[in-house]
């Protein structure tokens, strides 16, 4: 049981520090002192290591049977005491950094992010909570089917800044694909419009390389959301440091690299066929007929990428929105107002039918 936890404290006043996405520094909640990540890293390097060792030693000593929290552990939960207010907290086994719900103290469980579980890289948050909320409000605009009361009445239930665990795959693809293509010529002969369609079979073979295809390694994060908030700018990847985590929740992966790789493979194959199709030029239409693509992984990295999760409830149903914590791109499904949908459907139907009746009436009379 990892009952030894770390919360970065201000070297000046010992108040809790949290990572500020605007300045990219760790800021004290009390005296507003700020420190660079490297300064805090140097200060806490030794402390992190000893905390991890202590956590492992503690687990080895007690074991699940001798632990008073064995039932909680069996359910995949862990327990710790907040170092700030002393509250006893139960947290998910895959949570590595979180905040105390009573005093808001940001804490890190270093054992969860060390050794083999330690990420290679992290992209620090650049988007603040306020910017994430503003992005959600903007998302509501220009949505004719959105229930009027949804944006007016709903209140955000929860806003979480999460460092989501991602596997980054480097890989190569090689193979071939066959496409069906057509060329079309039009001309007139007397009172006839003549169309000539020539059909072709186009074969292409080739190879393509990929770098850092991201696949989220957490079952807690919806795959559709994590794919849709891409892309991340990987030029801003930083070597991992827990100093980026205070103030956010950090998950460790619960889907291993092998299991997650299928999604990277599918995407790489899709891009390879697409790139081959792009070379079939000079035709009016090109459609894929068959493809044989082989994927090979060349490198694997583990990274934490920033995501704001905003959840809200409306009419008894949960709505989750994800915001890319680096770029601000927001995704999330919105509720549909049935009356509005019907009004649009029948309104469009009536207007277009009336206009079409006028046109066809004239044409066929």
């Amino acid at each position, binding site marked *: 049981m990892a009952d030894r936890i770390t919360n970065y404290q201000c070297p000046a006043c010992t108040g809790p520090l949290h990572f500020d996405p605007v300045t990219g520094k760790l800021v004290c909640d009390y005296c507003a002192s700020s420190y660079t990540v490297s300064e805090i890293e140097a200060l806490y390097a030794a402390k992190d290591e000893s905390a991890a060792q202590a956590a492992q030693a503690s687990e080895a000593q007690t074991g699940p049977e001798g632990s008073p929290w064995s039932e909680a552990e069996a359910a995949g939960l862990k327990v710790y005491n907040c170092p700030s207010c002393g509250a006893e907290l139960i947290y998910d086994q895959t949570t590595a950094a979180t905040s105390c719900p009573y005093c808001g103290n940001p804490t890190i469980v270093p054992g969860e992010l060390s050794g083999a579980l330690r990420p290679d890289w992290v992209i620090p948050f650049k988007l603040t909570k306020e910017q994430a909320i503003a992005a959600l409000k903007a998302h509501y605009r220009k949505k004719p089917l959105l229930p009027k009361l949804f944006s007016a009445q709903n209140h955000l239930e929860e806003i979480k800044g999460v460092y989501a665990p991602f596997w980054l795959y480097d890989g190569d693809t090689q193979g071939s694909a066959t496409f069906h293509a057509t060329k079309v010529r039009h001309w007139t002969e007397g009172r*006839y419009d003549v169309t000539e369609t020539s059909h072709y079979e186009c074969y292409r073979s080739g190879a393509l390389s990929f770098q850092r295809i991201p696949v989220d390694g957490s079952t807690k994060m919806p795959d559709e959301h994590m794919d849709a908030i891409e892309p991340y700018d990987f030029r801003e990847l930083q070597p991992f440091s827990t100093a980026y985590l205070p103030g956010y929740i950090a998950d460790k992966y619960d889907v291993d690299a092998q299991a997650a790789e299928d999604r990277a493979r599918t995407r790489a194959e899709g891009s390879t066929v697409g790139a081959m199709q792009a070379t079939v030029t000079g035709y009016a239409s090109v459609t894929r007929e068959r493809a044989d693509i082989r994927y090979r992984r060349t490198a694997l990295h583990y990274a934490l990428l920033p995501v704001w999760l905003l959840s809200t409830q409306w009419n008894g149903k949960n709505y989750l929105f994800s915001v890319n914590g680096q770029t601000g791109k927001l995704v999330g499904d919105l509720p549909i107002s049935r009356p509005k949908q019907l009004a649009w459907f029948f309104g469009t*139907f009536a207007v277009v039918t009336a206009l079409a009746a006028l046109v066809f009436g004239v*044409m066929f009379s």
Partner: protein
Amino acid sequence: MKKRWTSLLLLAALLSLLALPVLADSDRELPLVCDTCGLLTEEQEEALNEKAEQYSAAYDCDIVLIVVPDTEGYDVETYTEEVYRYYSFGWGADRSGVILLLSMEERDYDLAAFGYGNTAFTDYGKEWLMDDVKPYLKKNDWNAAFSKYIDLCAEYLRKARDGRPVDSYGALDRLRGGFHLSLRAVVYALIAGLIAALVVNGILKSKMKSAVLASRADDYLAGDLQLGETDDRFLKKDVTRVRRDRGSGSGHGTSVRSSGFSHHSGKF
């Protein structure tokens, strides 16, 4: 010209023996279908004549078809007018009729109308009619060509009787001509409305759903495609021909000469 007309007259006298009952009520001096070049068999000519008589009587407008070896030095339009007058073609007091004359030597044709025929066979309509008949004439498929001609004449006369002769109608002309909502127009309009409503609904619904799984990894390419073998092989060729919609013509109506005839002539 007189000589040829006389020869036609002799032929007419001969043919009249065969078609006496039909011609009894008319002062025409030739049957409606008259082939002096032997393009048709006797049976074919008889059948065509019968059909022409039937339609002519139904619409009070003679449908005439004359085939001659040449036009004796006259232009084909003058020759057609003379033949029409000389052999007293035409229905009723205003001598209504339409005549197609073929001159085989130069492969000239003239389609002329007179009286009510000028209303039913507009300039545009005559052009369209010959567009449908000419492919058969070019193939020397005479019986099919003449049968098509008589059928189309009947169709044009029916449309004219319904108040909408075949003509080049622009959108404004059609509106001026009266708005009539046919069943076909209603069905088409309903289908168009339904498709538009489904498309608009689909677009609006797609705006509400933004979370979808990615199928490609284009943002993570580490270089361009290393293209290997390429091979584009021709498979086959399809050709479709669609007749252009009516209404693209410029003018409409019928240009009637001082002689009372309107013409459309050319080669086949």
